[in-house]
């Protein structure tokens, strides 16, 4: 079985608010003061694929990333987590392309790599958070699509998957070659690679693919050709002055807390 996992490298989403600033020229976050990391949902996706491979055996996992030079680190980490192959589709554009363009580039690259039994993406990214790449990718490849998946088993007809809904979950049967997007759950927390595997990952080759290789005309990819583009980006101001409840002792403080809660409740 051949599995493909699409991963994205993003600015560390867990940096404190005070370290976050905006590049007004490029209309994106300043990358100077923060690390680049693999998007968490992409790591959940890789973990889900690794568990599927472990359960069926005789399978290989390819990770693919459309990203900058620095994305090599994310691919190395995926190899250290024990993915089999890695492919970097080099993004040397002057802007950050939208989800539709990203999916279009990924689809061309995937077609050049061959066919896969299941294609994984994260449900959304921690930077722009559009949550659309998986859907566009399925449309580009003309294959079935199911988002918010958190568990996958192989069956004789394809796969049986569980997906989260607003109010619970559903189980679906999906055919081979589908695109699924993966969400976090208590059983797909990404594994920590072993030191030995991290060392080994540096000996593996990462296949590099350029726009030219994919016969995509780079000069046709620009902010104006994207279907969606940012026209403003700013840090919202929304701090409110918190009243810290003080008092003689804990009992008095909790009394005040109760009063304040009842006060709000009485307005309902």
């Amino acid at each position, binding site marked *: 079985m051949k599995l493909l996992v699409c991963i994205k490298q993003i600015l560390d989403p867990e940096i404190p608010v005070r370290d976050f600033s905006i590049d007004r020229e490029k209309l994106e976050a300043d990358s100077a003061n923060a690390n680049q990391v693999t998007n968490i949902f992409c790591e959940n996706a890789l973990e889900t694929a690794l568990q599927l491979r472990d359960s069926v055996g005789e399978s290989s996992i390819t990770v693919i990333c459309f990203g900058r030079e620095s994305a090599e680190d994310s691919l190395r980490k995926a190899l250290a987590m024990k993915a089999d192959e890695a492919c970097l589709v080099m993004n040397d554009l002057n802007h950050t392309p939208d989800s539709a363009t990203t999916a279009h580039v990924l689809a061309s690259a995937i077609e050049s790599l061959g066919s896969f039994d299941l294609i994984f993406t994260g449900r959304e990214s921690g930077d*722009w958070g559009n949550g659309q790449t998986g859907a566009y990718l*399925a449309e580009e490849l003309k294959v079935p699509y199911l988002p918010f998946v958190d568990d996958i088993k192989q069956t004789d007809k394809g796969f049986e998957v569980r997906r989260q809904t607003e109010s619970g979950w559903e*189980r679906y049967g999906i055919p081979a070659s589908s695109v699924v997007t993966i969400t976090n759950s208590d059983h797909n927390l990404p594994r920590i690679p072993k030191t030995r595997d991290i060392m080994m990952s540096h000996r593996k080759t990462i296949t590099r693919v350029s726009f030219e290789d994919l016969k995509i005309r780079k000069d046709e990819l620009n902010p104006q050709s994207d279907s969606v583009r940012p026209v403003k*980006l700013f840090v919202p101001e929304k701090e409110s002055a918190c009243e810290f409840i003080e008092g003689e002792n804990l009992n008095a403080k909790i009394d005040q807390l109760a009063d304040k809660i009842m006060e709000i409740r009485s307005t309902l």
Partner: protein
Amino acid sequence: MSETSGNGSDILCVLSSNEWDRSAEGLVGAGRLLSDKTGGKLIAVTLGEWQDSALKQLGARCHQVRVGQTQVSVSGGIESMLDYLVKLAEEIQPASILFGNGTVEEEISPRLAFRLGGSSIGDAQALTISNNRIQVTRSVYGGKATAVMELQKSPAVVWIRSRAFPPAGPLPQSGSFETTVIQETSPESIELLQHHEDASEGVSLEEATMIVSGGRGLGGPEPFEDLKALAATIGAEMAASRAACDAGWVPHSWQVGQTGKKVTPELYLAVAMSGSSQHMMGITDARNIAAVNTDPDAPIFKHCRFGIVEDYRNVIGPLTEKLKSRKK
């Protein structure tokens, strides 16, 4: 202005929740906001089984209601539903197609945009039109920034935070109705095998006016039982941070935030959670936020109206007792 580039000036609102609730009101309100600007018609598209009384509310507020009667359940018949919406959009040539927030809406929007050669974006908190193009305001970078995104290809397919939009009043004249039975056009490649609803007693989190929410600092599933007792005393619903859900302490349907529910209560009581920007994305429209946290520098306090710096273990039990006696 008379039209947005490419398509016509009509606005489609697709309603799949089959209820006239605050969410449907907000979706129609958002549609009206746009149709008032484009000068086009506001057309409601309903999916699923709708009560006559709910359809009447829609008819009063829209120029036209297209009732799509589905044989199959919404989540089971995505392909046929997409085919139906593509056909409808090709006939009407709308400037924009709006959806509410939900699993199915999020799944469908980009696929519909792709098939119509349009553009799509989600989680819209505000909508405007500039240079004949729809612009969407949304939180990005896990809530650390706000972006205005321009949808450059028409139709603009957008799923919105419905409850963030003001409801629209009735139009001078009620709209016309047209009913279509949605046929099973494409074979469903995906088969629904089982549907599970997490146990919940009260109203949905989105409709809740009081919410008690727990985070990683609770350290395990047991303290959530104490929070439940507290919530029950004041008639609040339960929620959690992603850290608590990921740990398996509570179901994922409790998660609030960027990738969880967006809630709008009068009171959101955050217990033992730090207030990460991603979590805050789910409670930007809460009227009052209060917190119990041992760390006075926890970011949650920056968003609170009031708070108490204390170990939750010393607070929750006595607080529940005090609230019980005050209710009497």
